[in-house]
């Protein structure tokens, strides 16, 4: 299930939104997202998907003219999918040209805009370098964010040190959230919860904050902590069904509630444990559960 997995990974989301036109559809003509034209094209390039019973379909990269350039397993990890997406862009540069808006951004955008663009395009080192050159607090917080996505906790700490005591209101919540992730990674569950535990629903990035609170509660390593974490994620899923963090929360919830030890892929075997009602393959071990 890619949505509880690679499709909930920020690096993957950014790459897809920046460089691809993504489409999903139901192979069954009776499905809510049925799409006859999409089915026609896909069956032409992958005839096996035209049968009455098919294996879980892969993710396909296709030209608008219908040429299949790449396919990635439904069970790929975030890193595998990201590599596959970047590889197809590299080997087909004609589909990787910057648009007009991007060209403008690259030359006259703010450091934040240019860093975001570089990050989306996979040049994470250049994005970080650009942010390090800026003395602005928002650049430092974004730098912490990029370092966190790369699991570079020293980098997160150094970036956040630059904004200590002087965080402008506009990025205060972002800085708190990065500090919470850092505390969680360093096994300071109480510290993580103290940073963001009392945010209200109106807070920017509330859903991500609740997700992290759940992770920190779980890390208390007690039965109570586990129940608190499950309740936190369930409440998040119930309140924010169309939020990028909801699949991440469902992924964590299902794994913890099923008692999966997380070694290898897991499946609920038909039980409806997932608050979102997902069934069958539930994804690999959620990497956030082991974050350090």
């Amino acid at each position, binding site marked *: 299930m890619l949505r509880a997995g690679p499709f*909930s990974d920020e690096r993957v989301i950014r790459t897809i939104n920046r460089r691809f036109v993504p*489409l999903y*559809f139901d192979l069954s003509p009776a499905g*809510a997202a049925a799409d006859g034209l999409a089915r026609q094209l896909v069956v032409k390039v992958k005839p096996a998907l035209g049968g009455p019973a098919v294996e879980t379909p892969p993710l396909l990269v296709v030209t*608008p003219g219908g040429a299949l350039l790449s396919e990635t397993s439904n069970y790929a990890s975030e890193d595998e999918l990201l590599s596959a997406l970047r590889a197809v862009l590299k080997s087909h540069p004609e589909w990787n040209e910057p648009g007009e808006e991007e060209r403008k951004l690259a030359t006259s955008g703010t450091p934040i805009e240019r860093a975001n663009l570089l990050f989306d395009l996979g040049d994470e080192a250049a994005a970080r370098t650009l942010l390090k050159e800026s003395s602005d607090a928002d650049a430092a917080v974004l730098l912490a964010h990029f370092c966190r996505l790369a699991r570079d906790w020293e980098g997160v700490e150094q970036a956040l040190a630059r904004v200590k005591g002087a965080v402008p209101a506009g990025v205060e919540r972002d800085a708190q959230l990065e500090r919470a992730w850092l505390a969680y990674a360093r096994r300071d569950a109480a510290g993580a919860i103290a940073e963001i535990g009392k945010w209200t629903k109106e807070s920017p990035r509330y859903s991500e904050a609740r997700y992290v609170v759940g992770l920190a509660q779980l890390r208390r390593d007690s039965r109570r902590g586990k129940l608190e974490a499950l309740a936190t994620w369930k409440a998040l899923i119930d309140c924010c069904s169309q939020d*990028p963090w909801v699949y991440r929360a469902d992924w964590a919830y299902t794994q913890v509630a099923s008692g999966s030890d997380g070694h290898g892929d897991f499946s609920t075997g038909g039980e409806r444990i997932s608050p979102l009602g997902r069934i069958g393959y539930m994804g690999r071990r959620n990497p956030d559960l082991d974050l350090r």
Partner: protein
Amino acid sequence: MLDHLLLAFACLAPGETKVDQTGIRWALPFKEAQKRSLREKRLLLIKPIAFGTEKSGGW
């Protein structure tokens, strides 16, 4: 950070099936996606689903 990835709410006319909006900016239906990919000179990324989709946008 992720907030700039959030999308405008989008609906499909037939049967009012909602488009998933949990992060990726999906382009539906195929005809629109194909037009956009030609216009923007971008590759189509297609996820066929074999185990059901819901009107709520779930799959």
